[in-house]
């Protein structure tokens, strides 16, 4: 059996969620790798869109930042920041958004702004960037994050971007274009919202137990009636990730 790192495991599982033809608002790091992996396997027509205003990017090297020049060379279009958020995201032209943050809570709300009080921060985080609007207006959102108790509190300290608020009905009332966070991929398994919008455990990675997941989650996490075991990363997937996409292991060696 192939061995793999936590980052590789998350990346492969995130890639499998992407569909051919998806227009994806991409971040750097694991989401970028997941998109490139999907393009080289089951989703050759996936379109990568970057908040820097790049559409249809074909990066020839691994970009360190979201504004790397390699994203521009060979892209189908480049536009202003106002245009990318207004014409592309707000208008409903983005299928998938990737989100991350320091905290993700029971209803998929994300905190990327502050730990502690906003006016007197204990830990000041970078803030929204594009994520407030991505979470609202991309049709489907995915979150990739390591599974740790401090990252999964019952309630976020600050709501940078909306999941299902305190229940799906409240998100629905806001009349947003996007469905919200439809899956959270961690290094232990996958969480998905139930009909009330609460995140529940729907899949375990091979060799992981429910007890492990519960011990690393900050609320009494429910399990789906039918708990899936994910397929381990395949030889071809690992080959593409390691030998083609991140040969120096910048993003993948973790875990």
């Amino acid at each position, binding site marked *: 059996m192939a061995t793999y790192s936590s980052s590789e495991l998350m990346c492969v599982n995130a890639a499998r969620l992407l569909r051919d033809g998806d227009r994806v608002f991409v971040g*750097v790091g694991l989401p970028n790798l997941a998109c490139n992996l999907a393009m080289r396997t089951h989703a050759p027509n996936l379109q990568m869109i970057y*908040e*820097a*205003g*790049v559409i249809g990017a074909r990066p020839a090297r691994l*970009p*360190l*930042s*979201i*504004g*790397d*020049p390699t*994203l*521009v*060379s*060979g892209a189908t279009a*480049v*536009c*202003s*920041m*106002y245009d990318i*958020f*207004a014409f592309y*995201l*707000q208008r409903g032209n983005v299928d998938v958004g990737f989100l991350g943050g320091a905290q993700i809570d029971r209803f998929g*709300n994300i905190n990327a*702004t502050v730990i502690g009080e*906003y*006016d*007197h*921060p*204990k*830990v*000041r985080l*970078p*803030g*929204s*960037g*594009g*994520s*407030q*609007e991505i*979470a*609202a*207006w991309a049709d489907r959102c995915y979150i990739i994050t390591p599974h740790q108790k401090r990252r999964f509190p019952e309630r976020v300290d*600050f*709501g*940078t*971007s*909306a999941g299902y*608020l305190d229940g799906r009905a*409240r*998100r629905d009332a*806001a*009349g*947003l*274009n996007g469905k919200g966070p439809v899956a959270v991929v961690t290094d232990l398994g996958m969480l998905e919202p139930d009909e009330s919008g609460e995140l529940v455990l729907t899949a375990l990675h091979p060799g992981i137990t429910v007890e492990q997941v519960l011990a690393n989650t900050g609320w009494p996490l429910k399990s789906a009636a039918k708990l899936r075991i994910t397929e381990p990363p395949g030889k071809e997937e690992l080959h593409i990730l390691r030998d083609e996409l991140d040969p120096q292991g910048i993003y993948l060696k973790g875990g």
Partner: protein
Amino acid sequence: MSKFCSLKEAVQHYVHDGELLYIAGFTHLIPFAAGHEIIRQGRKDLVLARATPDLIYDQMVAAGCVHKVIFSYMGNPGVGSLRIVRAALESGKLEWEEYSHFGMISRLQAGATGLPFIPMNQTAATDLEQHNPAIRRVVDPYSGKEVIVVPPLQPDVAIVHVQRCDANGNAHIWGIIGEQKEAAFAAKHVILTAEEIVDEAVIRSDPNRTLIPEFVVDAVCRVPYCAHPSYTQGYYDRDNTFYLAWDKISETPDEVQRWLDEWVYGVEDRAGYWEKLGDETHRRLQIKPRLAAPVDYGNY
């Protein structure tokens, strides 16, 4: 003062203590040379606005030029924390005003187009709105639903770096165009820095590429390599090695002061800075050409 001048003269003439500055460029075309010149001239109490403060505002905060920052993503892009700005926010030494990227860019868009506000659709994330009184709601008179609005941002000075412009300031930009045009139209004064000053005929050969027209520009400065460690598409690469190195340098105030002494106070201008970087760095940042297919405007 002549419109075509040195960056030193432009900063002396247009940038004053206490003013609101927008130093433009989303990752691309960030005019670091202008930030360094402002530090050298010892400006104080500035309000610095940028979607992403980036290392340039980290350095200006470290040098004591800044009273307040306005931003939407405060990080070292692709690396992690923007340590100096972050520490100043956590210790209460720096005031701040915060938006999402779309909110920030919409403020510039309103400022650039002369509108009293710009509406945005709701996002259901209301915490920032509760902490920033500039983010408000109005009722859409057509649907009766609430939309989010932000006021115009009209900086006292915008500093915008471009690939090339003519001596009057008609500027060609390509690659990531971020908020360059919006910043230039929103600001009361504009300092344009350019990798190259070209003949007006070059600009007129490709008018669709002109994002900034001469009549919003106050000063035109020829500053090759102005953007390092950011980059200029087609001219030189982003110095990712330096972005990673800054993460270490900025861990300790002493190291930061040493760095400022050596690379900002210790050089005369950008030409001196670039020379000091040395051949190895120059070679590392060199890029191969990749030309666009020519377009035919037609001879009418």
